């Protein structure tokens, strides 16, 4: 078992979510930074899609009730293990870590990035809803956010023994790539130029539903109402105020505001790591 000593601001159980159910109004959900969850799972010898913990910022503390192998990925920042004798060890990220019974794993405030992922060898074995143990913050499907004293069962589904000592950090990239459309015609070429030419600020009012961007605002080239249409994670939806909302994994499956462009799939994981106040540039690709 893993016992939650402190959840930090928000700690959620997430796997790779519930893709394929948007037609009945169910969001993909799952890990916001899917690549980091996959890496954490590989480091401990799990299937890449095993359920782990997505921790927002710092403050998560987990106690192992039995010896466990874990790995921490995603944001960068201090990881410590506090033993029963109160001895504290600094531990690396992106490496398999061996916890003894009663060791407490603690995540400090990230120096870069925002969301960390903790995988445990065997996976977190919670009941699945619609095929996934992920918590969807909008629809409230899946296990509730972690609270002090929660005890999470650890499964026994593993693929092999951990064989990587340390995975390299992901290189930072300067801008998120955006493919125009489907409704870029609502903003014209001037709108796309403004999207690419603006230094956007990540709003503190951002979450897994959407990352709100301050700046601009973007002006519409036409008026009218858009009938509700399907939305995807990564869509830059533009409400009438002109400040885009970059939809996250728990975002709505349909929406009535035009989408000027969609962040390319390979750049979506980085959206999870944007910090409030961080400045962001978008590059138009065709």
């Amino acid at each position, binding site marked *: 078992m893993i016992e939650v000593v402190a959840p930090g601001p928000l700690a959620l159980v997430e796997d790779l979510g519930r893709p394929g159910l948007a*037609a009945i109004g169910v969001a993909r959900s799952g890990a916001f930074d899917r690549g980091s969850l996959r890496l954490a799972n590989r480091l401990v010898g799990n299937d890449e899609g095993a359920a782990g913990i997505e921790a927002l910022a710092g403050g998560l503390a987990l106690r192992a009730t039995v010896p466990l192998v874990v790995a921490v990925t995603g944001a960068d920042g201090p990881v410590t293990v506090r033993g029963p004798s109160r001895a504290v060890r600094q531990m690396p990220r992106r490496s398999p870590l061996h916890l003894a019974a009663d060791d407490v794993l603690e995540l400090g405030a990230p120096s870069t990035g925002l969301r960390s992922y903790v995988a445990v060898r065997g996976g977190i074995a919670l009941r699945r809803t619609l095929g996934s143990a992920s918590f969807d913050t909008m629809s409230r499907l899946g296990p509730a956010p972690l609270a002090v004293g929660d005890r999470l069962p650890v499964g026994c589904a593993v693929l092999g023994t951990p064989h990587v000592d340390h995975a390299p950090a992901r290189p930072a990239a300067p801008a998120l790539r955006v493919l125009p459309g489907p409704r870029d015609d609502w903003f014209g070429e001037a709108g796309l130029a403004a999207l690419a030419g603006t230094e956007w600020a990540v709003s503190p009012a951002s979450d897994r539903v959407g990352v709100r961007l301050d700046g601009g605002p973007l002006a519409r080239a036409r008026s009218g109402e858009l009938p509700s249409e*399907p939305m995807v994670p990564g*869509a830059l939806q533009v409400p009438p105020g002109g400040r885009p909302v970059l939809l996250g994994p728990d975002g709505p499956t349909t929406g009535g505001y035009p989408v000027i462009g969609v962040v390319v799939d390979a750049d979506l994981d980085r959206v999870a790591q944007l910090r409030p106040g961080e400045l962001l540039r978008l590059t138009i690709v065709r």
Partner: protein
Amino acid sequence: MSLPFGVRRCGDRGLLVDADDAAGIAAAVEALALAGVVEVVPGAAAVLVRHDASADPRALATVLAGVEPLARSTESGVLVEVPVVYDGADLDDVAAATGLTASDVVRLHSAAEYDVAFCGFAPGFAYLRGLDTRLAVPRLAAPRTRVPAGSVAVADTWSAVYPRESPGGWRLLGRTDAAVWDSARTPPALLAPGTRVRFVEVRP
């Protein structure tokens, strides 16, 4: 990349097809079972076709531009009867706004046959088309913070049943005890795209 008229990029893993009959196009694309297509999602007037990295978006767009909608499934679609107690908080307001009596509103709402055009807003929240045009009323100016599960409502040209308690701005005509959403059931949504629906008045 130039695409056929009416087909738009939706990121590098999706295409959006403009369609008057989005549910019909979605059903037709599903039936084609195209290689590389991983999900088909109807909206009110457009269909999202999500694909994986193996699909060539341009070739897929050409196929999608030529798809004809499947006829509205008057015989093939499942027919669900939803029992309704018409005692909703907005029944009298809808009657006043439409110039009808409350019993006319109930009669018109329960006389029509609906079908699910698309889902959104929440798991299992189905937008039902087929509302009598005399019952078209705008949403509430200020949405309610809490609408009970099972509330039967109308807004604009749509009707719907709230699958779970949630905020909401639609006008409430009544309530049903039908389980519109159950995560543990297969399928979880009672009302999925293509499903036909009738509302049947019952006494409380």
